[in-house]
């Protein structure tokens, strides 16, 4: 005799099997061209740097120690690798600011697109992505053109009488901010749109029936409903911006390193592949842990709100 519980259990097993089958292609591709090679990186982080790049096949933990500690080259004292730490913190700050800014600009934009008539939505989506079919460098140079002292922005400000002399925007943190938002905006808008389209406006209506203000409706109804989009968008903006260096260099002037530069330096002129590998793995571990916490926290708070 099979009990109802057994049937249910079997159905569940069957469901899980199907789910594994469905995710196989993605997992295989990522394993072959993503995770598999990463194992090589793990191996490399425990080897000795070759004299001119690459590695020597001798075991060493120097690279891992070098991520956190460094020996002062002049007085030979051992201290915390403060250069690595400050570069790491700078990159995190930049990513954080970029995520907040793209959310501030991207949320209304996605909302605007999602509330257009269905026919024209695809068109608006193209309007927002077409600028991104042009090469990143070209785009960044174009932004530079707009914000430089003799650029359109400053000319407009002078013409409007807001300022009499050009404001130095290029090579400041403002320029990085503008540039990063410009580059990463679609990464926020598209996932937001995906979860906003077909937003159940009956709930919104119900909110208004209960005399909620527009802001209350936004905060209590719309935002919780599109939370998956906010999470996806934040991940897609935050993590890639950690490695960004074209925008900080071209617009911000690049006087200070970003994580991307630091790691690239080790694989390039720095000729210390193991250190590069160890730095990258450290970053990967921190980001993965943070991501899992973020997703779990977000899922929990969703349940709490019901």
């Amino acid at each position, binding site marked *: 005799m099979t009990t109802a519980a057994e049937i249910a259990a079997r159905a569940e097993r069957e469901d899980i099997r199907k789910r594994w089958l469905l995710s196989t292609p993605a997992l295989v591709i990522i394993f072959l061209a993503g995770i598999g090679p990463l194992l090589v990186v793990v191996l490399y982080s425990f080897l000795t740097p070759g004299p001119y790049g690459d590695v020597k096949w001798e075991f060493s933990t120097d690279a891992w120690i070098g991520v956190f500690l460094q020996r002062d*080259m002049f007085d030979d004292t051992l201290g915390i690798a403060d250069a690595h730490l400050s570069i790491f913190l700078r990159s995190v700050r930049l990513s954080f600011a970029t995520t907040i800014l793209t959310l501030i600009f991207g949320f209304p934009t996605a909302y605007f697109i999602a509330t257009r008539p269905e026919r024209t939505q695809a068109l608006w989506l193209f309007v927002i992505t077409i600028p991104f079919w042009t090469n990143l460098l070209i785009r960044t140079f174009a932004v530079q053109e707009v914000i430089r002292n003799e650029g359109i922005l400053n000319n407009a400000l002078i013409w409007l009488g807001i300022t009499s002399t050009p404001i130095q925007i290029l090579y400041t943190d403002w320029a990085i901010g503008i540039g990063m938002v410009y580059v990463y905006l679609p990464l926020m808008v598209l996932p937001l749109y995906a979860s906003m389209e077909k937003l159940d406006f009956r709930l919104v209506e119900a909110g208004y029936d209960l005399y909620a203000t527009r802001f209350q409706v936004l905060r209590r109804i719309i935002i919780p409903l599109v939370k998956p989009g906010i999470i996806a968008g934040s991940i897609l903006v935050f993590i890639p911006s950690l490695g960004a260096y074209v925008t900080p260099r071209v617009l911000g002037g690049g006087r200070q390193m970003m994580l991307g530069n630091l790691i690239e330096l080790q694989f390039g*002129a720095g000729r210390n592949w193991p250190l590069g590998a160890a730095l990258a793995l450290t970053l990967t571990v921190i980001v993965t842990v943070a991501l899992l916490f973020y997703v779990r926290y977000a899922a929990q708070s969703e349940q709490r709100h019901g």
Partner: protein
Amino acid sequence: MKHRLTIAAITAALLATTGLARAEGELNLFNWGNYTAPEMIKKFEETYKVKVTVTDYDSNDTALGKIRQGGHGYDIVVPSASYVPIWISEGLLLESNPNQMENFKNVDPRWVDVPFDPGRKYTVPWQWGTTGVSVDTSVYKGDINTSAIFLDPPPELAGKINVVPEMADVMHLAIRYVGGEPCTGDLEVLKKVRDKLVEAKTKWISMNYGNIEAMAKGDYAATVNWNGSSMRMRKEKAAIHYGYPKEGYPIWMDNAAILKDAKNVENAKLFLNFIMDPENAALISGFAKYGNGIMGSEKFMDPEMTSAPEIVAPPEFADKGAFMLTCAPEVQALYTKIWTEIQK
């Protein structure tokens, strides 16, 4: 049996056609981006009936890393002087003896017995240049032939200086500014270098490439720069002059060489000989805007270029230049530390 004959016939026919395609020949060139004159390539293709494929790289380290891993399929690569000894010692280059080639007589004797390839057994000059400073002389009227432009900046320039993010060039300039030898591992000297760079950096506005427009538009008043790039700046704004730091400045040279595992060695040799022809070398210079080290090529070049102060160093500074060398690995590690330190 009949089938087998047909198959054999088809195979033979296929082999014949591919054989023909081979006879036409191929050449795979791996070179810096935006550095290979298309006209020169076309001319080579037409002369020798060889199909040339050009692929770009963006840094010496990328090129070295890729070739070292194997499976690349390239025939010719164009490494910088400071990397040539590494390529040779790692056994990546073919000893093709360009010094025996017909056009070798055109190579300027100055570039024959070079420290990185004495007597030119492996490499042929492609382009060479210097790293110095470009200064907007409408902003600063003083002496520009010094690294003080960016290391001890005069007040007129402070806050308007750019430095290219090239560790090797900047370290070379800074070490020689404080009186050291290139590639030195002397900690006394390096401490001075670090302190100087840390102090000077507060007066820089950026560390960036692509600065022709920025100079011309006045975002920068001075920049560490390559000579060819400086010449282009002068064309956009006449007041921008190139300074040869009298404390010492680096000379760089990119050199074409055949790879040891090249598949089209004969074509590659034809190519090396081809680019030592003055007329062809002039085509490369006309495109990349640097000197080529081939005597007689001036005749075929834009006179504006052969007389440009950026290309022809004034005699009093000509001997202040020194080749960029391959620094010892432990020295390189120190430089990386300083470089990270100043940008932390």
